């Protein structure tokens, strides 16, 4: 078990986004989180990833140093955790527009203290692995949607993160590119023994994940193996 979350509660004013959610994430598992808009999917992902702290509940994460409660950590500790333990792939890639593709991939490595030369070399290798050889000098805006998502996937691999969080990673792509990007994402995560938690509206994306969790009104409606 990589993550074990229990009793998660999150309010936004009078709105209850999460209402006692419990979820476990195992190594090598790919979990699709589905549900109607406003059901709490993105909030759950943000809580699991330590982006926001829940009003109640705990998120236990297994790290090399032992179990830690992400929900109880201070802001600075959660930042450090996101850098080393988690990777992120979002709808718009959440790439930094003024940096080149290679610099985006190198960024997490630079933040962990790797030299620029070494980080740049590693970034070029990762981009080549993901079929983006020769595009390292391009800025994000000069890449297609599919290429930008591959850069985001390469970035999530840079620090060898154990868990990758993805929020509608194929939402802005055409169906062929979406299928292609999802294949790359699954191969780079679950295919290598790492966990993938993906928020999606797309049943085709869910069908390719090993498990589907459906939320409704901040509660888990169903949790089962993908058919």
């Amino acid at each position, binding site marked *: 078990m990589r993550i074990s979350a229990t009793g998660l509660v999150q309010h936004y004013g009078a709105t209850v986004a999460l209402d006692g959610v419990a979820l476990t994430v195992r190594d090598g598992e790919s979990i699709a989180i589905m549900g109607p808009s406003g059901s709490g999917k*993105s909030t759950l992902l943000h809580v699991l*990833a330590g*982006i926001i702290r829940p009003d109640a509940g705990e998120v236990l994460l297994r790290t090399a140093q032992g179990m830690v409660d992400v929900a109880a950590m201070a*802001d*600075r500790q959660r*930042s*450090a*955790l*996101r*850098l*080393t333990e*988690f990777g*992120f792939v979002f709808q*718009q890639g*959440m*790439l*930094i*527009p*003024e*940096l080149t593709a290679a*610099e985006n991939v190198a*960024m*997490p490595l*630079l*933040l962990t203290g790797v*030299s*620029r030369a070494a980080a740049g070399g590693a970034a070029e290798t990762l981009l080549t692995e993901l079929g983006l050889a020769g595009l390292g000098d391009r*800025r*994000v*805006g*000069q890449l297609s949607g599919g290429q930008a998502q591959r850069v985001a996937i390469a*970035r999530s691999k840079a620090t060898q993160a154990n868990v990758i969080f993805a929020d509608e990673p194929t939402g802005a792509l055409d169906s062929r590119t979406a299928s292609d990007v999802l294949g790359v994402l699954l191969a780079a995560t679950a295919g290598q023994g790492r966990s993938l938690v993906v928020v999606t509206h797309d049943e085709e994306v869910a069908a390719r994940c090993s498990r589907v969790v459906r939320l409704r009104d901040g509660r888990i409606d169903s949790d089962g193996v993908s058919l």
Partner: protein
Amino acid sequence: MRPHALLLLLRPSRGDASTVALPVLAFAIVGSVEYLVAALARLFWMVPDDGFGQYKILAIGLLAVLVIPAGTLGASAARLSARRREDRLAVLRLFGASAAWVRGIAVVEASLLAAAGALIGVIGYAVLAPLLVWLPVAGHSTAFGEVWLPAWMLALLALALVVVSAVSAALGLRRVIISPLGVRMRTNAPRLHWMRLVIGAGVLAGGVILLRFTSVNWGAAGITAAIVVVLVAVMSVLNLVGPFLIGLFARRRLARARTAEELIASRGVLESPAAAWRQVSGVGLASFIAVPAGSVLGFLTMVENGTTALEPEQLMFFGDVRTVVIAAVAISYLLVACSIGVTQAAAVLERRGLSVSLDRLGMPLRVMERARRLAVASPLLIAAVFPALAATVLVAPVVGVTVFTAPLFIVTVVVCIALGVLLVRLGVTATTPVLRRVLAEPDRAL
């Protein structure tokens, strides 16, 4: 595009409060300062002149020295109001709105905010103007009634502020109008042309030559015109050359960047050297003013302490010159402080998407803060040193004399520049809560 679309776009949306309040506050400060400076200049203008019009030269000189810093702050505020809508306007262009419509929306909005600020500025003026009573002009104390500008002059100054903001907003949106996709996708990293440097050098050389040829024979009007033309022209080209130099240094720094914060800072500056210059241009203008101001103060001290006995009228006039110089420096620094507050807060708000991306990636707040400080450091150095050098070239004879006869002048200049640098650093630190707020509500930023 129908008129109700315009109204929809002009309506402030949720979360927009700070981006509306900032430009209005900046316009209000510019308005107050503009009215106060005009009132002070009017006091000097009304002194009965029995010489060669020296008090009228002082009045116009004061206005000329401060018109560019005030205009720059006004323009920053207008750009801020336009930039906050930039993405939405770019989307509108993608949907087929004409360039005239987009420009119209930006200009109307900036003008409304400027008008609101100009009105609030009248209150600031009403509160501060009575302090001018303490200021002796031509040896006489100022009467309470003399510090108030006529209503038509206030209206004219407010209109000038609205016009500056409208023009700046229209110019600030050139990129949206030329390339809607460029702004939407942020693909363009502008490269500034080296011709800016040539134009800057040419204007500076022209200014030096004009001042060398200026003589008492030209009369009050001729001397005033020469000084005003040179000051305004050189201060204007600072805004042309500054971004070019900043871009040049940022490219060199990018090549040497070793850490994440150095890389982000250099790339951020290169993304828009003009925006980086705007963040520190107040220091540039204050630094430009500090050199002649410091040398004039030094020169006056030298003459007063000299062996030649001075007439009481001359001593009185020197006192008035000192008043104007100190007022110019003080007000320019007030504008600097305001401009720094506005531009730093604007920079955080404009780059909120980047901050949220970096936060999710796991970049600690202290590293983000270091990146912000680094992004300002080189532009700040350029803004502090290059205008001071330009001013030194321009008034080299006076500087040359005072360096040897009144070395305190150098201390004045260094203190002025150091103060500007300190203000910018304080501006970065003071806007950390804005960044914290952006990170606390990341979803709103995306």
